[in-house]
């Protein structure tokens, strides 16, 4: 075990992956709690797909995919928020922005495969490849994560109010529309960062999975955010360790995708939270 740990931490690509993965995981978990509470997982998933178009464009012009993911993700998120105010409208707006961006993305990925004659770019955008992420991306990831987490700290109370008791919040003058837009920015950052780790198609797993389990287990929203961040962090660390270990596994001895392990771990957490006894029921009996 200790030799495994030593070899894991000895590889620069793996240490970079662990560092970037940790920051992404914590952001994703904390933001994900509100995605679960606001029932915005469709928007969250759409942002991952929308961002992939930006990532493909960034790849084409030689920029780090992260910048393409985040810039297009934030714009897409604000477009979704601006187009749809009510729940049903939002659903349709999300679908429209999503298809538009995926259409453009299809073209960009086509050009990409034609030009480089390799599938590495598209595959890493869609399914993630944390081991090939440029270690220099760590700094921007750290800054974006910090921005998203600070935004969540700032929004915390009015966002809880507007999310859980929207009519009362609006009556008290909480700026519900502004909050929705600001939360979209934090959500876009979290989703696009997860896309870097787990891929655009699977970024929702990291966003929703640990948060859904945490919401079930926690007793307050703040507690859920801390718990989701911790679960998400463990998931990414374990996913990276398993992927590293899988280099000696069949068939190709080239390592299984990290996203596969992350999704499996997320599924396990989710099922555990659904099947397991709810600790709050016990807490209630004690309190009575």
């Amino acid at each position, binding site marked *: 075990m200790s030799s495994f740990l030593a070899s894991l931490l000895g590889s620069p690509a793996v240490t970079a992956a662990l560092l970037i993965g940790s920051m992404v995981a914590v952001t994703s978990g904390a933001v994900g709690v509100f995605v679960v509470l606001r029932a915005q997982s469709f928007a969250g998933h759409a942002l991952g797909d929308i961002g992939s178009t930006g990532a493909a464009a960034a790849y084409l012009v030689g920029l780090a995919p992260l910048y393409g993911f985040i810039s297009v993700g934030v714009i897409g998120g604000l477009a979704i928020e601006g187009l749809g105010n009510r729940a049903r409208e939002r659903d349709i707006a999300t679908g429209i922005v999503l298809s538009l961006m995926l259409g453009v993305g299809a073209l960009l990925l086509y050009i990409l495969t034609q030009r480089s004659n390799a599938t590495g770019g598209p595959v890493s955008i869609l399914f993630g490849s944390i081991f090939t992420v440029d270690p220099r991306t760590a700094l921007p990831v750290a800054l974006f994560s910090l921005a998203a987490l600070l935004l969540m700290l700032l929004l915390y109370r*009015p966002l809880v109010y507007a999310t*859980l008791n929207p009519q*009362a919040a609006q*009556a008290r003058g*909480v700026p519900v529309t502004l909050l929705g837009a600001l939360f979209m920015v934090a959500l876009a950052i979290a989703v696009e960062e997860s896309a870097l780790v787990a891929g655009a198609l699977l970024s929702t797993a990291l966003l929703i999975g640990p948060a859904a389990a945490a919401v079930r287990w926690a007793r307050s929203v703040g507690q859920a955010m801390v718990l989701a961040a911790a679960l998400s962090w463990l998931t990414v660390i374990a996913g990276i360790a398993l992927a590293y270990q899988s280099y000696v596994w069949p068939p190709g001895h080239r390592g299984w995708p990290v996203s596969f392990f992350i999704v499996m771990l997320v599924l396990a957490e989710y099922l555990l939270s659904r099947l397991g006894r709810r600790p709050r029921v016990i807490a209630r009996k004690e*309190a009575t």
Partner: protein
Amino acid sequence: MRNPAADIPSDAVLQLDDVGVTLGGRTVLEGLSFSLRPGEFVGVIGPNGAGKTTLLKVVLGLVRPDGGRVLIAQQDPRAARRLVGYVPQSFTPDPDLPLRARDLVALGLDGTRWGFSLGGAQRRAKIEEALRWVDAGHYADHPVGRLSGGELQRLLVAQALIAEPRIMLLDEPLANLDLRSQDEVVSLVGRVAHERGVTVLLVTHDMNPILGVMDRILYLAQGQAALGTVDDVVRGDVLSRLYGHHVDVVRVHGRILVIGTPDAESLTCTTCDA
């Protein structure tokens, strides 16, 4: 009724002068004028579509009237938001919602402020006091998704009350409650008005649960309103004028039934068809 000397307008907590509201081309409220005193419990009654919810939205400053003037303690509703507590219709939290009873109440205290709460003894004491006042102390740490309808309504009253409002608006707080919970909520809201001096506007489609507690009744129909004591307003002649057609008021076993209104058709038509 409780304070006859308070009829001077400057004492009014809520004052409406000739307020009219048109929504989507339909006149919802027309020429509405009344003023309410501190600590008055007013029941807002009327058939569906009579403008009860619209009236609350006008007081909350969420709907701008097309004409007339609304004053809350001599201020515009938008400037007076802090003075108005609101208990919205239908709050049905998910059973797994990670929100304790005390957190729901705390939202009324500082939920509109940016950032995290750093806690503090004074804040905690205020929340405790509000929980105790609505008799919710024993379930303060329970998740809200597992509370009964009556327990939730008491928390929502505490959430509105903790901001120390001058007016409290409650939109159908008795809907979907069993009779015992209805009584508990009504007597609690009665104490809000008569002990704390908060002017209460309680919207309900059935006036009977609040007959013993309300000071005046605001009866809305066809965009018009009648305000007064139950004996003055809930009479065949007054309500017939309001509805624009004949309605009967029947008193049985201390309960009041209004017969011939659009709402009561389902009740009466079984007999009138026969």
